[in-house]
């Protein structure tokens, strides 16, 4: 399907199997069968104006702007045809507006009709300056309008959700938004309503609003509109009918400095564009990366950037005054000296490093190297969440070193005959994976299975099958999979996806590895955070060194010592402690200090223990973007740059390297990436990391190379005994973090928070009755073991197994882990909390 198709010796275009030859504007071209004329023309560099056509949406032929003249077998078709709906055919002759006066006139006529009801809003419209309607009205419209009557008007703008504003006057009825919602996201959104001149985009609620501007945040079914993907409709609307509430009137395209970047929101590593104006991020847009996110990003990626400008940013290094016990601003020199002295002293008894799951590859590498060289320890772990030794073995054996070629990629999900999601809620934990699963199910007939406790929206929207499992019993379910499912997973190309909550179920990673082994399905690990996969490769783990080398492997250590220019035997030989052990040791006073890089204690398996650890550790150094529970207890706080303010790279869950440049140049104290701060700190401690800049860190990483010598047997842990319910009001907890739950990246963005799902606790009707609860009532959740607080949530009835409840991991009602100290698979107690106000 290339333009420079081979010509045979007579100079004729060769037409390979499955291709056709046609003529567009007098140019002969070979195109694959089924390609739409508009796309073939585009490849030739012939631009046909269009509004409704979008390469990733099904053809609609709604706007009629793309009319061209088509001739088949020497006979012209009676009327101009919509080039976005007609596939190419052999011998077709197409004349676009460039060569056909008929097509040109038809396009101008359509444009005139579209503009009849279009308001003269350009000066106040957010789309102005980047508006396909403006542009194409100039290129393919008449200069004068013949329409003199009154235009149709609607009250505006109507909020369809807290993020999206609808202006029906500006709409050209192209249906890109409705098609996106139905086809791509699968969320009922706005629809085409009414007929004729009254035709409009809207919801049942907006249709009634003819003169009274009132809230319209309801979908056709009257449910509040809570889509994780609605921001994409703003971006693909070819006019200003759907605009962003957060970006409203903020800037014009010519004000913006745009930088291609990579989203720091989750492990998919979506390509996006960051637009800044006067030192502030104004908006983020999805970039086109067919191999990863296509042209979509989720709303979290699109809207969660105000945290960068949060009022509680750490802007100056701070040192705790020994006398007053207060943090006081200090110079970099001073703060680094105090930190280096403290850490050097603490090193005698051991310093644990809690790295973050959100670091870039370069920063994670710096933490890893800092721990080994400056702190002389292997006590480092990036897993600021529930984790297990079994997970570590699994990651080493099955995940380390895979890449899109050797392992699972977005493309292989799309082509897979069957996909099984284990301990993974794709829509909440990796939205772009969810979109691919849905696309695969819609377009390639992929069978999607979800091993989970209830039919979540993602199960329905991926046309999936739920394999119900009580939390904790997932390994057993996997070992005794239905043979039909097992057969489907044994088909070549089948894929197994496993999420971070598997670490909370003993034996699950082992069962997943066994299943992959026995079915031959390809296996991928999809963590929630953007930096986890990179941190794994960078060896920010107690058993792994950078570049896939094992701590236990003497040869690998020697190799690294040479590459890093260290004396023989300089690297610590003993396996380190993982996050939980570091915290336990610190809490018991066994550790001399802690180095913490962007960790929220409330994410850790035991937040109370984490706080005790921070208090009991002799000396705590915190590298932070914003003031947090850690900086409150730290002895030295060093400000670091947020992701858009630094360069570096993420490694996404596929193992794909996703480099990005600085998008936002700050002029204050928080401009240094972690790797630079650690590099300087190490110099104060007489160690050289060579990570002065992310570029230098990359060089250093390249220099040591990827060895991939770390091996581990696939884990073979046994499932633990299921906690037994001793009382009728006890239940096993199923939980995961929802996409929008007020996490630290989502701070200061009310429009985004407004589209979070309604929080509730879900249970079967039986469980509710047993606990004396009814739908809509407030249930009080507490931990079955003593201590801990409560979380109050309204009850929803869902198809969970009896004796199981599901509650969101975070949100405004409280955090399961922080307030109850429990996680997925724990026993909780349910009781009534009165009816909801």
């Amino acid at each position: 399907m290339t333009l420079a198709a081979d010509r045979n010796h007579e100079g004729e275009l060769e037409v390979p199997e499955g291709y056709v030859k046609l003529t567009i504007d007098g140019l002969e071209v070979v195109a694959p069968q089924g390609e739409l004329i508009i796309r073939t023309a585009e490849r030739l560099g012939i631009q046909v104006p269009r509004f409704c056509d979008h390469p990733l949406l099904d053809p609609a032929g709604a706007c009629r702007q793309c009319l061209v003249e088509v001739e088949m077998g020497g006979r012209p078709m009676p009327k101009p045809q919509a080039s976005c709906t007609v596939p190419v055919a052999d011998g077709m002759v197409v004349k676009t507006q460039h060569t056909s006066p008929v097509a040109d006139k038809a396009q101008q006529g359509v444009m005139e009709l579209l503009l009849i009801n279009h308001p003269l809003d350009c000066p106040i419209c957010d789309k102005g300056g980047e508006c396909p309607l403006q542009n194409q009205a100039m290129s393919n419209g008449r200069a004068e309008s013949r329409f003199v009557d009154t235009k149709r008007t609607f009250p505006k703008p109507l909020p369809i959700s807290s993020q999206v504003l609808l202006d029906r006057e500006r709409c050209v009825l192209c249906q890109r938004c409705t098609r996106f919602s139905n086809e791509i996201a699968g969320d009922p959104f706005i629809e085409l309503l009414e007929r004729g001149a009254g035709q409009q985009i809207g919801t049942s609620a907006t249709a009634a609003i003819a003169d009274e501007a009132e809230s319209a945040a309801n979908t056709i079914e009257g449910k509040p509109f809570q889509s994780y993907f609605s921001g994409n409709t703003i971006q693909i609307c070819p006019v200003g009918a759907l605009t962003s509430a957060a970006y409203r009137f903020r800037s014009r395209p010519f004000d913006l400095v745009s930088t291609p970047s990579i989203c720091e929101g989750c492990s998919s590593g979506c390509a996006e564009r960051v637009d800044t104006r006067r030192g502030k991020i104004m908006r983020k847009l999805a970039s086109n990366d067919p191999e990863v996110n296509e042209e979509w990003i989720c709303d979290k990626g699109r809207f969660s950037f105000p945290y960068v400008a949060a009022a509680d940013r750490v802007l100056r290094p701070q040192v705790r005054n020994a006398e007053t016990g207060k943090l006081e601003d200090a110079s970099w020199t001073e703060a680094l000296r105090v930190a280096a002295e403290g850490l050097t002293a603490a090193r005698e008894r051991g310093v644990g490093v809690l790295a973050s799951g959100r670091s870039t590859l370069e920063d994670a590498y710096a933490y890893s190297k800092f721990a080994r060289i400056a702190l002389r320890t292997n006590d480092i772990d990036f897993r600021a969440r529930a984790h297990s030794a079994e997970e570590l073995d699994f990651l080493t054996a099955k995940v380390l070193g895979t890449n899109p070629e050797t392992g699972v990629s977005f493309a292989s999900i799309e082509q897979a005959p069957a996909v099984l999601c284990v301990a993974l809620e794709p829509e909440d934990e990796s939205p772009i994976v969810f979109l691919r699963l849905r696309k695969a199910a819609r377009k390639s007939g992929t069978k999607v299975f979800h091993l989970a406790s209830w039919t979540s929206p993602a199960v329905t929207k991926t046309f999936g099958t739920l394999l119900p499992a009580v939390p904790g019993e997932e390994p057993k379910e996997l070992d005794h999979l239905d043979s039909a499912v097992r057969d489907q997973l044994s088909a070549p190309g089948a894929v197994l996806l496993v999420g971070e909550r598997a670490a909370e179920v003993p034996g699950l990673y082992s069962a997943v590895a066994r299943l992959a082994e026995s079915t031959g399905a390809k296996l991928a690990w999809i963590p929630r955070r953007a930096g986890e996969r990179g941190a794994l490769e960078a060896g920010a783990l107690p058993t792994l060194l950078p570049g896939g080398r094992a701590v236990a492997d003497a040869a690998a250590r020697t190799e690294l010592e040479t590459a890093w220019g260290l004396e023989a035997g300089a690297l610590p030989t003993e396996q380190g402690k993982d996050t939980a052990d570091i915290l336990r040791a610190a809490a018991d006073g066994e550790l001399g200090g802690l180095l913490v890089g962007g960790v929220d204690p409330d994410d850790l398996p035991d937040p109370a223990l984490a706080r005790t650890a921070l208090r009991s550790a002799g000396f705590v150094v915190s590298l932070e973007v914003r003031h947090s529970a850690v900086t409150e207890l730290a002895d030295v706080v060093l400000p670091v740059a947020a992701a858009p303010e630094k360069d570096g790279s993420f490694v996404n869950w596929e193992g794909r390297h996703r480099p990005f440049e600085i998008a936002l140049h700050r002029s204050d104290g928080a401009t240094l990436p972690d790797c630079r701060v650690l590099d300087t700190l190490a110099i104060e401690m007489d160690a050289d990391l060579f990570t002065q800049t992310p570029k230098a860190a990359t060089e250093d990483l390249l220099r040591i190379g990827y060895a991939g010598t770390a091996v581990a047997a696939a884990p073979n842990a046994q499932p633990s005994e299921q906690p037994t319910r001793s009382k009728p009001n006890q239940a096993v907890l199923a939980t995961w973090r929802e996409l929008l739950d007020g996490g630290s990246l989502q701070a200061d963005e009310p429009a985004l928070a407004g589209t979070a799902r309604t929080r509730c606790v879900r249970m079967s009707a039986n469980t509710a009755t047993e606990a004396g609860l009814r739908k809509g009532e407030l249930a009080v959740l507490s931990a079955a073991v003593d201590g801990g607080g409560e979380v109050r949530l309204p009850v929803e009835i869902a198809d969970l197994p009896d004796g199981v409840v599901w509650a969101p991991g975070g949100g405004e009602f409280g955090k399961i882990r922080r307030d109850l100290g429990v996680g997925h698979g724990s026993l909780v107690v349910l009781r009534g909390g009165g009816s909801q106000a």
Partner: protein
Amino acid sequence: MGMFDPIKGFGVTFSTMFKKTVTEQYPEDFRATAPRYHGRHQLNRHPDGLEKCVGCELCAWACPADAIFVEGGDNTEDERYSPGERYGKDYQINYLRCIGCGLCIEACPTRSLTMVNFYELADDDRQRLIYTKEDLLAPLLPGMEQPPHPMRLGDNEQDYYTKGPQLAREALPASGQSGQSKEAGQ
């Protein structure tokens, strides 16, 4: 060189001594400019005091010297600065850059931005030569009210634009004596 040449040279000087002087004794003797002179900008108001600027940034876009900075804002029912949805929240003209070409005036879709004849745009401080919205807004005339306030002359912005002059006459029967007449090109 002839012997009378030095005297000849003074001829110009002598003859000029008896001509009418063109030197202006600025600033003691302040003369008006030509009526269409491109002086300082002004952001005009509707007759009820609401601002005409809608924050569209077309002026900033048109400016060849990149002298204008505009950021729009969202009018709410409780806080309204202009009729319609949008107003100019932040408005700055940098007179160190402005070349007085007037292209911004032509770009303005609401006739908000015009130029007055005031030309004393010199200072010894760069900061003071960045004029902000407060410096540029037209003075309040009788009958005008300092925004924010609701639309006094109509139900929506269409009324302001289509019936502007008529509304102005009704609202201000005896206007036309002061600053408003400085609006160039109105």
